[in-house]
């Protein structure tokens, strides 16, 4: 049995490394992106094998799903910009006949020069072999698992990863939310002149599917959020699922994007960090330490923070997909 598992591990790792290699060696960017999404899905499988279902969920939703959508829309934008520059007159989206061919020209990276081959190869080999040497010398310790286990009863939740994320190391999680927000502020500061270049296919099929998928996604998101306190799941996975539903909606009708109102949108994207910080400051004032909770209040406060964080993450991910600053934000 264990030999079969080793064979499975080896095949999976070979697949992951092979796909990553094909992705990096590809001259066609579209192919590279598709391979990268495949890479993310294979990674999710590896995380399941490493007994990390939370991470597998996050990798599939965030690493492969959201990142994949971001990469694909970026390629579409690059193609549209190139087509515009080549034809010399501004129009979005570009004319149909030039579509695929302009894409091939614009989204193509020539094979790398020969002279960088050996230096890069030797550098990567040295780094890789040193890393492997260091890793093979390490003791087979269990890390912090016993310490976390000993404190689970006062953490307010039953799932160790949620306990670490929102109680024991809440500061890291707070800053993680801040980083998502800063990335959005950075993308917004570049301007507000961005449309989704892809046009939806006409016909009843896409709207019909959306009518089915979006409610299911919302229910799933809420379920994953709620499950996070006792089973794999939590704010980030839920936020990614809701964000994916939002991205689908944006994709389906880019022409009639509802004008996002300025102030509610700003409040929505900052709700997660703002609430987290308020709870943290309250903890400091009440003597539990910054970002600390009284044991009895830990569960409700964690759920409250997670709900706000889910909302903010979902909104921020959709906004990062749209990329440009909404016109309402300047009002």
């Amino acid at each position, binding site marked *: 049995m264990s030999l079969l598992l080793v064979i499975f591990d080896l095949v999976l790792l070979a697949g992951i490394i092979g796909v990553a290699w094909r992705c990096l060696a590809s001259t066609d960017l579209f192919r590279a992106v598709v391979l990268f999404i495949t890479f993310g899905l294979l990674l999710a499988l590896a995380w399941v094998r490493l007994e990390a279902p939370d991470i597998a969920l996050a990798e599939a939703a965030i690493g492969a799903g959201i990142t994949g959508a971001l990469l694909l829309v970026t390629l579409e934008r690059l193609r549209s910009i190139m087509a515009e520059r080549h034809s010399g007159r501004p129009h979005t989206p570009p004319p149909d006949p030039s579509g695929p061919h302009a894409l091939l020209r614009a989204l193509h990276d020539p094979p790398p020069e020969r002279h960088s081959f050996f230096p890069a190869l030797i550098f990567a080999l040295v780094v890789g072999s040193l890393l492997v040497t260091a890793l093979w010398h*390490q003791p087979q310790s269990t890390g912090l698992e016993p310490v976390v286990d000993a404190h689970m009863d006062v953490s307010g939740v039953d799932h160790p990863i949620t306990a670490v994320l929102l109680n024991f190391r809440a500061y890291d999680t707070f800053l993680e939310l801040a980083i998502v927000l800063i990335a959005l*502020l950075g993308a917004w500061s570049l301007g507000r002149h961005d449309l989704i270049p892809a046009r939806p296919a006409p016909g009843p099929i896409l709207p019909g599917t959306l009518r089915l998928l979006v409610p299911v996604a919302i229910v799933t998101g809420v379920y994953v959020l709620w499950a996070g306190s006792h089973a794999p799941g939590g704010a980030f996975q839920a936020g990614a699922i809701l964000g994916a539903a939002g991205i689908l909606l944006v994709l389906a009708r880019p022409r009639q994007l509802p004008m996002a109102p300025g102030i509610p949108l700003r409040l929505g994207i900052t709700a997660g*960090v703002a609430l987290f910080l308020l709870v943290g400051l309250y903890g400091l004032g009440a003597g539990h330490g910054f970002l600390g909770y009284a044991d009895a209040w830990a569960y409700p406060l964690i759920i409250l923070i997670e709900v706000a964080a889910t909302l903010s993450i979902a909104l921020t991910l959709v906004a990062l997909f749209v990329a440009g600053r909404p016109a309402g934000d300047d009002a």
Partner: protein
Amino acid sequence: MIEAPETWLPTAIAGLVGLSLAVAVVATAWPRQAHRIGLFGALAVFAWVLGLSALFVAAGPEAEAAATRVALGGWEAPLGLMLHLDGLSMTLLVLTAIVALATSLYSLGYIHDRIERRQFWPLWLWLWAGLNMLFLSGDAFNLYITLEVVSLSAVALVAFTGTAAAVSGAVRYLLINILGSLSFLMGVVLLFGEHGVLDLVLLEARSEAGPTERMAAVLMTAGLMLKAALFPLHVWLAPAHGSAPAPVSAVLSGLVVTGSFYLLLRLWMGVFAPLATPAFGILIGLLGVAALIWGSAQALRAGRLKSIVAYSTVAQFGYLLVAFPLMLVDPDAWRVVVFFAVVHALAKASVFLAAGTLQHAAGHDRLAELGGVLRARPRTVFALGLAGVSLMGLPFTGGFIAKYLLLEAGLGTILAGSVIGVLWVVAIAGGGLLAAAYVLRMVAPAFHRGPERAGEAVSPWMDWVPLGLATVAALAGFAGTLTLHTLTLTPGAP
């Protein structure tokens, strides 16, 4: 009865983190008032840092290592995260507060477009909060996260003008930063795999000169050198710093680079201390000499005022590298190195702010055509010169004290019988001469004959803030004793 300062210290430390984050969050949620929130927030954080430093120095000799560590959420390491305040971080917090307050005041005048203001202030307040958290962090993984907060907001600030040069510099800066962060994170992961803890104090207690520490040291040092633009990993610096808006350049060259350097110093004095050998010191010192020469040469060749200043950052950080071998011989030298970094940050920020004022007045910063504006703006030229004098290390400035102490340490090495010590002394003395050459290049047009041209009107903030900061840099010499004393309050350091 007033309680002893050390009982208030933990709350004040956590409060500083909370306050700087709160300012950033409120400005993000309410961008219309971001500049006002930013101004009041900057004053509040500045006052808080000063109060904290008074508490810290008052608690000083009695403050045990434990008193300066704050368990967030009440969870002690290894389970939870600890904030960590000692003399080194206190010094850098005060430095950050001074430079950041000056930059905030300057930005009030510099960024007046309504839309620019809405973009600038939240990002800038996040950057400041990130720096405060970086200096207070005592956990390896948390350091990675704070580094990401700092670098993402810094990149966004470089890019936010949206010009081709700025965006191109920002892309390069971002990729380099992500690479540096990943390299750092891989080091953290290796250390965690070996020792099973993330807290720096616990890691320090367990670390030895094994393969894990060696590889982690290589990865984390390389990552931080990329971020700090230490030679030979410096190529990104000039495009990013030179094309950013003036207040951003000031913060990047003054504080962000110093933050990475701080972390290098902290790691090598703590977790990686068993690995520091003389051969390693000499290698780093040679890199420093190369940086000094290359950076100075570029600064002497560059055609734009801000490029000169950006390249001089590469050269000045060469100095810091030259000090590494001295630190291995004379353990006390590290305090001088930190003091030099502090003076450099103050002077460099004021030079960039002054350059920004001149660029605003002239509409460009090409040195060849800047003469008229330089002649018409003696106050700004004086600020430029005063800060430049500090960079050169002329007597009675902060830079002089720092370079004098470094030279003393270098001569000590020679007396101790080290031949290569001669090279360090020559580099330290010669670097000052090269600095003099490029500082004179910047101010020389002011003394040529020719017509005056006042150019665009300049707000009072932009006129006076560079001068004020340059004065602080020049007078920093008088605070030298206090700084060096504060630095002795670093547990574990010699």
